[in-house]
């Protein structure tokens, strides 16, 4: 039981980092149809900003986290305005090959991660988190910082969900995702809405990177596998809500931690990727197929009932 609880707690604070990417990736994919892999680079921008500001320049860590997240948000908006928008066009008017935004996103990820590597070096960097002591949960002892980290991630995703559900920007973003041309007809400014959602999702990714570098040594390329996990997690349930993605991220982190605990290090990536891909196959192939089959059966039953009812009347 203690072992299970320890893994669950570990999944809680590891999944909290992944969730900040999964939420951003899922929301951008839903509203703009772009697979925004560059979020992996924004993760590194946030983390390394905290290192630069707090370790090299002596700023307080909370201020470093805020500035890092804002910087990552700004980079996200700039990427959309000057790279994605010219490639994809606005209001769904320009038809592009679906590979183009993906390739540009991958290109941005590679450029930013390697610029960070040249600037800071290829060795992992770590920022000592504030000493908040240890918290006892059942028989497990957990660093209070890790609990605070999970709470910050949950709060950030909750705020994002609140902003989307209670503001005009949120409604406009959903409208753009469903029908970009229709949204433009009713006066939605795609440029403005996209600036805001890329800024917000960039901030989430930057916060993820900040929390990561405050928890364990981080490399410039660490955003790459995390954005891959985040992408697969959100694509299993592309229409799910923000908090569902958050919980799914914790679930994925639990599988990851459990694989290490039960099989040993080395296989966790294979197991998690296989489970996530299996989830996508089930959600995108198996379930739609079963739904189509159920609809066909229902239609056949209705037809049979109608013809059975019509026979006595006709005869």
């Amino acid at each position, binding site marked *: 039981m203690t072992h299970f609880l320890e893994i669950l707690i570990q999944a809680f604070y590891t999944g909290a980092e992944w969730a900040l990417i999964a939420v951003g990736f899922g929301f951008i994919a839903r509203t703009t149809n772009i697979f925004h892999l560059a979020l992996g680079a924004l993760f590194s921008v946030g983390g390394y900003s905290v290192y630069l500001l707090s370790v090299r320049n002596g700023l307080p860590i909370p201020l470093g986290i805020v500035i890092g997240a804002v910087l990552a948000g700004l980079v996200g908006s700039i990427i959309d305005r000057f790279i994605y928008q010219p490639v994809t066009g606005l209001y769904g008017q320009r038809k592009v090959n679906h590979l183009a935004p993906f390739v540009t996103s991958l290109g941005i990820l590679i*450029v930013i991660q390697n610029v960070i590597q040249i600037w800071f070096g290829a060795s992992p960097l770590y920022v000592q988190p504030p000493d908040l002591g240890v918290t006892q949960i059942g028989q497990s002892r957990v660093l209070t910082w890790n609990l605070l980290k999970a709470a910050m991630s949950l709060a950030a995703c909750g705020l994002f969900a609140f902003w989307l559900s209670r503001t005009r920007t949120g409604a406009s973003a959903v409208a753009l995702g469903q029908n970009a041309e229709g949204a433009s007809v009713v006066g939605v400014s795609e440029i403005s809405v996209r600036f805001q959602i890329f800024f917000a999702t960039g901030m989430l990714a930057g916060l993820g990177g900040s929390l990561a570098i405050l928890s364990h040594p981080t490399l410039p390329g660490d955003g790459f596998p995390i954005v891959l996990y985040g992408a697969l997690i959100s694509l299993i349930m592309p229409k799910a809500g923000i908090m569902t993605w958050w919980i799914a991220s914790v679930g994925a982190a639990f599988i990851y931690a459990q694989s290490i605990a039960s099989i040993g290090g080395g296989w966790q990536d294979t197991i998690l990727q296989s489970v996530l891909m299996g989830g996508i196959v089930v959600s995108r192939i198996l379930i739609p197929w079963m739904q189509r089959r159920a609809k066909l059966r229902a239609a056949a039953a209705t037809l049979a009932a109608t013809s059975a009812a019509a026979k006595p009347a006709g005869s």
Partner: protein
Amino acid sequence: MEYWITVLTFALIFASLSVSYNISVGYVGMLSIAHAAFFSVGAYTYGYLGTKLGGGEMFLPAVGLAILIALAISITIGAIITLLPENFVVMGTFALQVIFTTLLINTAGITNGVQGLAGIPAPIIGPYEFASRTQNFILTAGLALVSLLIAIAILRSNIGLRARAVREEPAAALSLGVPVRLIQVSFFAVGASLAAVAGCVYAGVIGFIDPSSFTIHTSVQLLAMVVIGGMGNPYGALAGGFVISVLPALLIEMNIGEGAAAALQQILFGAVMILVIMLRPSGMFPERKIASK
């Protein structure tokens, strides 16, 4: 001179890989990020057979076996991922690549894990042994030529025309009776098989392989080669592969430190990928338009 022969030899291997990658990405629009996985299938098949079961004579049997393994994996995976929406294919193959790299590291009984397979013998084809630098260059030039000829033959065939229809308008192609999924899976499998052959040659030429040569970064590098060269054009893919493979050697010649050279090379790849998509989406050598009769 010998240094440049070696550089050109490896450039030809990657140019062949780029041509084979173009068959699935450029011809039929199926963006896979798992091409390095199929490359590793060939390299490890010959690496294992050459070191454990025999010498360079195992080269041709290894090529045959590698093609069979690559076909089996690509057809199985292709049949599943082509059922997914087109954007999801990318993520599916991304996952496949990660899984493959982990398998190479963890199945140490076959692959020798991170330590890799050393002492892979020079390939022997009939009476010829390809052991010296010049012989290796001839072997890789032959590989590049065969890959290019196959790619051109596919492109000019009736099925190549259908593949273009599948890439441009899958729904319209389906309505005209084109077997969209069959074509997608077939092209994916042909590309994978050619990558496996390139892997056998690579292992024979380099003599040592480890998982670091077949990671997701290799797949991304291949994507850069095809995007920069020109998707859908076999000559473009060949040129893209060749140029990008020679680039690191040029950076090292310019006395840029090895670590910085690798990072600079990546930045250059990424930046050129972005610029090509923004300014010249069809690449350096665009695909020829089909003349209407």
